[in-house]
């Protein structure tokens, strides 16, 4: 966003283009919603002298002085002209509520392009089109056409679904949950999610950023920006279109391309964004981030007056990144003194069912005082001797005193209403389900880990770019965009080790090359049209020198029989790589439409094909991220020497990951690339085969 962006959420004067009193119209709804606005509202409508008692003007040129924000509700073709007029007049922020742009077809898309051109020309901050509007509680500004205004708060919320916003506000109002700013992104023609997180990062009144998105426009930019933002301001996001069915729906709804779920997991992870699976998590996480401090560590104590819920909480902790705290001897002694004999003084603490407020409070006090305890979850079932209101007060007091995050689990129905409010006033969430409480504390720990990360720059290796470019250009003369083993030099050019070998096109040459290689050789048919060489007998392993000629003929014949119109470039004669002492791994890359190049790694064979045990990162990948990738995969122990094998050279693997990252960053034309297998041995790695897809227009 540019100069004057402050006026988007905190304008002094708001113009409404298309303001009207006509029943049931959007213009009317906006004007009504703006009645509570602290600043000035200026209706613009050539057909009216006044709207709701406020004098109206024909258009912006009739208005004296500066207007910081304009809201447009007029039909699409007028909206474009109105935008231009506003921009020319110096209005810095425009919200286009009007629909009928890119989401409706090609004519609409053309109109949307016009809006983009105007915005670019005048450096306009344009929200939408097809937006519900924007809202900001400090000035009581509701420039949306939704039915309700939000309560004040310190969470700012952006959504790609306007309807979702109205539902959220209605629910949040019931819950007593408030917001600072709300933005309906609409078609994201100009301002997108990256712009808003940047803006709210600088906004001191925004403590947590929430988002509902179906797609991210420029993933890499988002990651780089979010990394900065999340150092100070947590971002929690629900990104839908995660499943096959959901992706179809998203494409229909907003024309979003289905980015892979793995890409989003990796991308949002690398961005330092907390991902919520659903709406409930979105608000659970947001609220606890808003109301509770971030813990110093991940050691959690569970205090409960009922054994069952205590165990449930413990289970949930086992599933999370939290750990059960080990109390100090001093804590145990104190708990032993203050709790009756039947109680459990170890974590999870069970005060037993007859605990009154006094006993409960004492237990919480002792536990929170323990230096080994970073956070706590307090659970309670209703009993006659326990006053929930007083318990809530005690929890709040103690939490504030020790400044450690606490989640409450006061279970029950009606009787929890007032205590929940008390706790809520102090920023402490209350849940019926202990697992939810644990997950919320887990989110705090995740956020703490995010703030601890120090992002590393990627390593730059000394590579042969010209040679790589030359090899990639081979795809231009072809019918398809694919290259195969004939492109192995690409890896060599970027310092990824490949076995000795050459591609030949006569049996005689094959024999000569084989003679120059020690030991038996591997021979493979080279054809960009044949994808699965081994399936068609296109690979021969362990060919001794005297059988090379025959092997050559055989390979070519099989290929021609299998696919008569395949282009055969020859046969690759290659050094045999020792697979016995090595582990087969897969190293690849896929260009995700939203995040850009995604580096993928896993163990080969069934591990990737059946178990799908792979890890991805968005490139460029730093050394630390590459090392993390090796930690990520479940079958990592096999690389480290399980079952009597020697550990492989992990540093060589991480170096290959980084070199590949550099290759695909240097050449945006590479759309997909697979090194399968990358054989890892105790002394290094070798890339044995390669397949890639190139976009010749980007070379």
């Amino acid at each position, binding site marked *: 966003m540019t100069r004057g962006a402050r006026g988007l959420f905190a304008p002094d004067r708001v113009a409404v283009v298309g303001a009207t009193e006509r029943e049931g119209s959007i213009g009317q709804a906006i004007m009504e919603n703006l009645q509570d606005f602290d600043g000035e509202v200026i209706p613009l409508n050539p057909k009216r002298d006044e709207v709701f008692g406020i004098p109206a003007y024909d258009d912006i040129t009739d208005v004296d002085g500066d207007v910081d924000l304009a809201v447009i509700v007029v039909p699409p073709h007028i909206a474009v002209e109105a935008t231009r007029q506003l921009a020319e007049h110096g209005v810095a922020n425009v919200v286009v509520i009007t629909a009928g*742009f*890119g*989401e*409706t*077809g*090609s004519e*609409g*898309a*053309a109109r*949307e*392009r016009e809006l983009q051109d105007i915005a670019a020309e005048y450096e306009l901050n344009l929200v939408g089109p097809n937006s519900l509007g924007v809202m900001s509680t400090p000035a009581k500004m509701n420039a949306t056409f939704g039915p309700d205004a939000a309560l004040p708060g310190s969470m700012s919320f952006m959504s790609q679904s306007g309807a979702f916003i109205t539902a959220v506000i209605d629910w949040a109002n019931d819950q007593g949950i408030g917001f600072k700013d709300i933005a309906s992104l609409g078609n994201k023609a100009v301002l997108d999610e990256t712009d808003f997180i940047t803006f709210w990062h600088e906004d001191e009144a925004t403590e947590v950023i929430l988002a509902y998105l179906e797609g991210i426009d420029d993933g890499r930019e988002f990651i780089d920006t979010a990394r900065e933002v999340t150092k100070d301001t947590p971002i929690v996001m629900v990104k839908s279109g995660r499943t*096959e069915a959901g*992706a*179809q729906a998203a*494409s*229909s*709804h*907003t*024309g*979003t*391309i*289905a980015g*892979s779920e793995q890409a989003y997991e990796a991308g949002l992870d690398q961005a330092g964004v907390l991902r919520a699976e659903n709406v409930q998590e979105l608000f659970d996480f947001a609220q606890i981030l808003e109301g509770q401090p971030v813990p110093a560590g991940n050691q959690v104590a569970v205090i409960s007056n009922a054994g069952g819920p205590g165990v449930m909480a413990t289970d949930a902790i086992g599933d999370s990144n939290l750990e059960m705290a080990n109390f100090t001897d001093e804590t145990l002694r104190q708990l032993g003194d203050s709790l009756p004999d039947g109680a459990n003084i170890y974590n999870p603490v069970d005060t037993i069912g007859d605990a009154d407020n006094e006993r409960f409070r004492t237990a919480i006090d002792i536990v929170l005082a323990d230096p080994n305890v970073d956070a706590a979850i307090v659970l309670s079932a209703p009993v006659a001797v326990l006053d929930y209101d007083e318990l809530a007060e005690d929890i709040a007091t103690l939490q504030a005193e020790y400044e450690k995050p606490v989640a409450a689990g006061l279970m029950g129905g009606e009787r929890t209403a007032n205590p929940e409010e008390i706790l809520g006033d102090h920023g402490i969430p209350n849940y019926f389900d202990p697992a939810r409480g644990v997950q919320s504390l887990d989110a705090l720990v995740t956020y703490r880990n995010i703030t601890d990360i120090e992002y590393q720059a990627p390593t730059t290796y000394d590579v042969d770019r010209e040679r790589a470019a030359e090899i990639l250009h081979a795809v231009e*003369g*072809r*019918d*398809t*965009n*694919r290259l195969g083993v004939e492109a192995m030099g690409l890896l060599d050019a970027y310092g990824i080790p490949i076995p000795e070998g050459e591609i030949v096109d006569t049996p005689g040459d094959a024999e000569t090359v084989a003679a120059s290689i020690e030991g038996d050789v591997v021979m493979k048919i080279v054809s960009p049209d044949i994808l699965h060489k081994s399936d068609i007998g296109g690979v021969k392993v362990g060919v001794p020198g005297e059988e090379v000629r025959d092997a050559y003929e055989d390979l070519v014949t099989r290929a021609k029989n299998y696919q*008569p*119109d395949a*282009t*055969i470039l020859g046969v690759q004669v290659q050094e045999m790589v020792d697979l016995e002492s090595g582990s087969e791994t897969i190293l690849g890359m*896929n260009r995700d*439409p939203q995040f850009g190049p995604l580096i993928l790694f896993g163990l080969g064979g069934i591990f990737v094909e059946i178990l799908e045990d792979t890890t991805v990162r968005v490139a460029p990948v730093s050394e630390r991220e590459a090392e993390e990738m090796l930690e990520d995969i479940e079958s990592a122990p096999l690389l480290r020497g399980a079952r009597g094998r020697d550990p492989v050279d992990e540093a060589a693997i991480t170096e290959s990951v980084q070199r590949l990252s550099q290759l695909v960053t240097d050449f945006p034309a590479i*759309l*997909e690339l697979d090194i399968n297998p990358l054989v890892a041995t105790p002394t290094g790695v070798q890339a044995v085969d390669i397949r890639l*897809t190139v*976009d*010749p*227009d*980007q070379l």
Partner: protein
Amino acid sequence: MNTLLLASTQESTGKTAVALALGQLARADDRAVGYMKPKGTRLQSNVGKTLDADPMLARELLDLDAEMHEMEPIVYSTTFIEGAIRGQEDPEELRDRIEESYRDIAADADLMIIEGSGVYTTGGIVDLADDDIAELVDAGVLLLERLDSVGDLDRILGAVDRLGDRIEGIVFNAVPDSMYDLVESDIVPYLETRGVPVYGVIPHNRNLAGVTLSDLTDELGGQVLTGENGDVFVERVLVGAMSGESALSHFRRTKDAAVITGGDRADIQRAALEAPGVKALILTGGFDAPGAVLGKAAERDVPVVKVQSDTLATVERAEELIRGGRVRDARTVEQMRQLLHDHVDVDAVLR
């Protein structure tokens, strides 16, 4: 007066493009050129008009005055063939008709270029196969052939035998990279030993492959939903029936393709729009795509066409059309002129 008949043993060898290109080259040399296609077989479909597009193009490009019925005296339609086998056609009368048209057109020309049927044996039913016609108008025959594998030689030699003394020579067209060296180093010398000169070997040229999207749209009876770019060239079709996630990977591997998919597959459509090699989107089943997808298509300049037929039928028809590669425009002939110039001994051919 020189009369040259272009014949082939297979359909779609590029006869029209070569015929017209030769005609243009001859005219550039100040020769008066006449053109005929005695048996019109490439019929306009759908609308039912039985006029061949090739003579029409010839008239335009070679600036000819001749009447359509003279350039194409016989319309070799299914109706004609049925009539012929029932004895309703008189081969004598047909021969006379062709001869008369030939004489009329040849009167003003010093080079006559005659385009044979798709396959040279067509017309045998009424004793008017291409070798019969060559005999009738005293033409030398230039065989224009594709060569996708060495196995094709047997078929070509069969034609050589049948044509006997009439054969002038062979030109190979659209020879794939993988065959080119073999053709030059082994096949051409072999044919010379069989007494058949090879006047040229034209390599496969990507620009001459494929059909325009307008042609495809017309033939499929489609409706353009967005994008006016009918000039887009489509060389292949891909079917979009896989999962949304694998779609992008699949589409990225292709070039100059049209993706054919159901109108209800928004995820496939969106993935297709993301792939650089996808030049057009064809939606089947009479569905409209969601507005958001059309908006994106407009943004990326990818035309979207809607057809009523189902995916399978559409794919089959589209592939047929692409294989047929209709030569409809001056551009293709122009490119062929350049190829002839670069790879063929045109002087020897046109003598």
